Structure formats: structure tokens, C-alpha cells
């Protein structure tokens, strides 16, 4: 398959089932909501090292937020059920609670699995906290020096998908970066999808384990490193001198497939030789995103 002169490899991205929560942060201004969300999702690129993958999902207009203020929605994903509340309690407590004017709401109200995050955070109120039930949902009011912090008592958790991906194989680093930026722009602010890496882009794609250091969980994906072309079983076609990867997490597979479709189309531009994807032979993850099927 050729798309805008770019070859689409006959392969698939292999993704995993994860647990996901959606956090809605509102604030007096969009800037403060963004400030809280940016800190909240810092150091949350990969479960390999961060134990959680998180990023801003969408910027929310006032018409879509529970309290009518500017907001952002954030997706949080972990491998197991237990890690998700742990990460949320620590991170919300240190970032959103501390940020001026913010309030924090559950973005998955219909999910039957409930995480008692606000219930845990309430003890910061040292006995001065108070709860309110509004529309059948309980919220906690924590007195803070600025005024009050309002947080939902529980947050929904559901199964999500982590590790959707595609690789941009380009003639040079500038072409790879330009294509990646175009792909990220096309995939940003879509419901149900986040790109957890810096700017949405990964330059250090990894393989499972390591050749030399047996204790490593992951190491550099040498097959796609241009500098190692003569030294390893390279997967790079001739003329490819730089590779960037886009990693996608989301609430469900259709959301990821839809984002990959627009992202790959945006990445197919001059200077790009091939779009391919990372997988593990289909043995590790239940979600397979076949590039040519997505683009058909």
C-alpha cells in the first residue's frame, strides 16, 4: 500500500489491555487548568519506568465541564487495578490539590469500578473537610489557604488499551520530526486517546529485554536504530536515516484505530519512506491494529 508516496508496511501494532481513569480538572482560567494537568501528567510516559501512562486528552470548553469553568480531561492508565488509585491519590494530592482555583471531577461516571481517590484525599482536611452530595454524587470539600478544593469522592475505572503505535521511517531527522509533529497535531484533542510521550513522540523505541544486560525490562530497539545498521539485524530500508514513534493509549480500541488513521495520513508527507508498527509477533497483546486495514 502506498499513501502519498509513502509505503505502508503490511504489519500491525500490538497493544495491551490496561486500566484507565479519566480525570476532569477545572479552574478559574484555562491556563490554571492546564498548569494543574501538566504537572499531574508529568513523568508519566511509560509504565516501564513511571508505573503509569498519562496525558491531557482534551481541552474542554465551559459547556462540557461540570461547574461551567474552563477545563481539561486527562487519561490515566496502569497495567493493574491496584496501581491506578495509588497513582491518582499521590499525583492529585501533590498537583491538582495544590494548584490555585482547581476542582477535580470524575470523567467516567458510568464505570462500575470505583476508585476512592477523593475519599482518601479528604484527610488532608484534618477533620475540617465536609462532603456534599450533588446529583447523587458525593464530593469532598477540603479547606485550603486559598478557599476550598472540591474533589469527587470516587473516580471510575474501566478497561483501556495501551501501546497503540506506529513508526515513521524518514530520510532524515528533519523529515521524521516534521511528519511526527503533523501526526501529533492531527491526533491531539480527540476523545478517548492520549499520546503520553513528550510532545506525543518517542525517539527511543524499545524492545523487550536486552541482549547484554539481563536485568533490563526494555532496551533500545536496535533494529530501528540507523547508527547500528551494519551491526545488528536492521529493519531499516535503504535511505532511512531517522525513525520516530508515536505511542497511543486510550479508552478503547476503536478510538485508537481512529486516531492512528488520521495520524498516519498526516505523517505521510515528503521525506518519509515508510510507516510501520511495533509488535511482538501477536503473542503478548490482544489488540492488533493492522495498518493497512485501518487505512483502507
Amino acid at each position, binding site marked *: 500500500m502506498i499513501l502519498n508516496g509513502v509505503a505502508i508496511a503490511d504489519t500491525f501494532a500490538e497493544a495491551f489491555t490496561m486500566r484507565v481513569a479519566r480525570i476532569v480538572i477545572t479552574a478559574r482560567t484555562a491556563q490554571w487548568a492546564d498548569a494543574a494537568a501538566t504537572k499531574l501528567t508529568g513523568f508519566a510516559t511509560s509504565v516501564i519506568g513511571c508505573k503509569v501512562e498519562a496525558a491531557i486528552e482534551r481541552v474542554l470548553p465551559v459547556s462540557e465541564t461540570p*461547574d461551567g469553568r474552563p477545563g481539561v480531561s486527562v487519561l490515566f492508565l496502569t497495567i493493574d487495578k491496584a496501581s491506578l488509585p495509588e497513582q491518582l491519590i499521590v499525583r492529585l494530592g501533590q498537583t491538582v490539590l495544590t494548584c490555585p482555583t482547581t476542582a477535580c471531577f470524575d470523567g467516567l461516571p458510568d464505570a462500575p469500578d470505583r476508585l476512592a481517590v477523593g475519599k482518601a484525599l479528604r484527610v488532608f482536611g484534618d477533620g475540617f473537610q465536609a462532603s*456534599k452530595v450533588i446529583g447523587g454524587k458525593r464530593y469532598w*470539600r477540603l479547606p485550603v489557604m486559598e478557599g*476550598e478544593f*472540591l474533589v469527587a469522592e470516587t473516580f471510575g475505572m474501566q478497561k483501556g488499551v495501551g501501546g497503540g503505535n506506529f513508526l515513521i521511517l524518514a530520510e532524515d531527522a528533519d523529515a521524521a520530526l516534521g511528519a511526527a509533529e503533523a501526526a501529533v497535531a492531527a491526533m491531539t484533542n480527540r476523545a478517548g486517546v492520549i499520546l503520553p510521550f513528550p510532545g506525543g513522540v518517542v525517539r527511543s523505541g524499545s524492545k523487550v529485554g536486552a541482549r547484554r544486560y539481563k536485568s533490563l525490562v526494555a532496551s533500545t530497539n536496535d533494529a530501528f536504530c540507523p547508527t547500528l545498521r551494519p551491526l545488528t539485524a536492521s529493519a531499516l530500508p535503504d535511505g532511512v536515516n531517522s525513525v520516530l514513534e508515536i505511542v497511543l493509549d486510550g479508552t478503547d480500541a476503536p478510538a485508537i484505530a481512529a486516531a492512528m488513521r488520521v495520524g498516519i495520513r498526516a505523517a505521510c508527507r515528503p521525506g518519509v519512506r515508510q510507516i510501520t508498527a511495533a509488535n511482538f509477533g501477536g503473542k503478548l497483546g490482544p489488540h492488533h491494529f493492522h495498518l493497512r486495514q485501518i487505512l483502507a
Partner: protein
Amino acid sequence: MSDAVVLSLTHPPEHALVAPAIAADRFATLGAKEIAALPVLHGGRAARLGDFWRVRGERSATLRLEGELDRVEGIATAMAGGEMVITGNAGRDLGLELGGGRIEVRGSVGDNVGGARPGAARGMTGGEIVVRGGAGAGAGAAMRRGLVVVLGDTGPGAGRGMIAGTTLVGGRAGRGAGRFVKRGSLVLLGPAERPATFRYACTYRPPHVALLLRYLRTRYGLEIADRYVTGRYERYTGDMAELGKGEILQWIGN
């Protein structure tokens, strides 16, 4: 089973009509004849619901009451669920000891809406009562949990002795509002005379009030001006003669 049970007042009561049996959750399992046979007290004498109302529909937890019910007392006593709309006024003791569900009154109500029985320690333990008109004395008194909203004026003692929950008054609140509150919130959008046992804390924009007012707009279609949603409120804590963990939130403007 019907979409809703509708009770239309055909014979307005000449005396006080005590009708605690009228409750949305109870009607969910009753046929029309069984509903019409429910007992009421008219002027202290036993009567049947069907003597005063025409019953349409059956076996539904959605209930609509039509007619002016100023003399009908104790509607929805201890109701635990379901939805009820009263198109006109209602008498005293509406939602007495309400445990759950929603009641919307398009008109006004009498004394002790959402309140407690005489001598009882607590009134409402859950649910929501929204009154578009005014209310008599003791709206939301002794509430343990839940929400009472009165868009118009209230008589004396709104939220008196609340243990928790929220009472909101959109108009003028009569004297003694919030007296003996242990916990809970009394939100006052109009003028009120506060008990001396409340202490001023601060002036701020309470986030839960904005959330509550927006919920009332969405859920009940109430026309609540933006100035109340985004406005500033004075917070008074009290009643210092009790636990002192309650609050009066008095709207003061933007």
C-alpha cells in the same frame, strides 16, 4: 405498568387531609384500584384516596399530582425513591422524613417541608425536594442528609437544627434560619437575618454552590441567574451553640 401514575384532584378537601400514603415508591407495586383504596384522614376521619382523586396509571414510581393541594398534608412521608411532581401547591409536612427520591413542586408548600415528626431527632435522611414557590416555617429542619430548595421566600426557621445536607432559599429567609445547625449548609440567595451564634469566616466563591446551582438548572430546569452561580458568598460558621460545623452561605454579589 404505566409510564406514570397521575392523581387528579376531583373533590377538594374541606378540611385538612392527611395523606402520607401518597409516595412514588409505594405506587410502583400498586394497581390503580389499590391506589384508590389507600387510606387518608379527612378532618380526622378515615377516608380513601379515591374519594378525592381520580387515579390514572398504575405500578409506576413516577407520580404526578394535579390540583391545588394546600390542605393536603404529609404527602410523600418517608418516601424512599421515585419521582414526584406536584403541579400546584401542597400543604404542610411534604416529604416528612424523606429517605430518597425526588419531589418537585411547581407551586408553594406549607410548614415543615422535608422536616421531622414532632419530637423526632431528625427529618430528611436523603432525596431532593425542589419548590418553585415559597415555603412555610421550618423548611429542611432537622435534615440529616439530602437537599431542600425553595426558590421563593420561607417562613421562620429554615434549616433549623440541620444535622447535615443542604437547604437553599432563593428568596427572603424568615428569622431564625439555620438556628441550632450542627453541620450542613444553608445557602441563602436572598436577604436573611442570621442568628447571632454564627461567626463570619470569609467571602469567597464556594465551588460546591456553583456545582449545585448548575445541577438544579439542568435537572429541574430552574432559572437561576449567572450572578448566583459565579457570585461571591459570605461564609458564616455555626451554630456555635451546637457543634459549629454548619454554615450559612450568604450571596452578596459578583
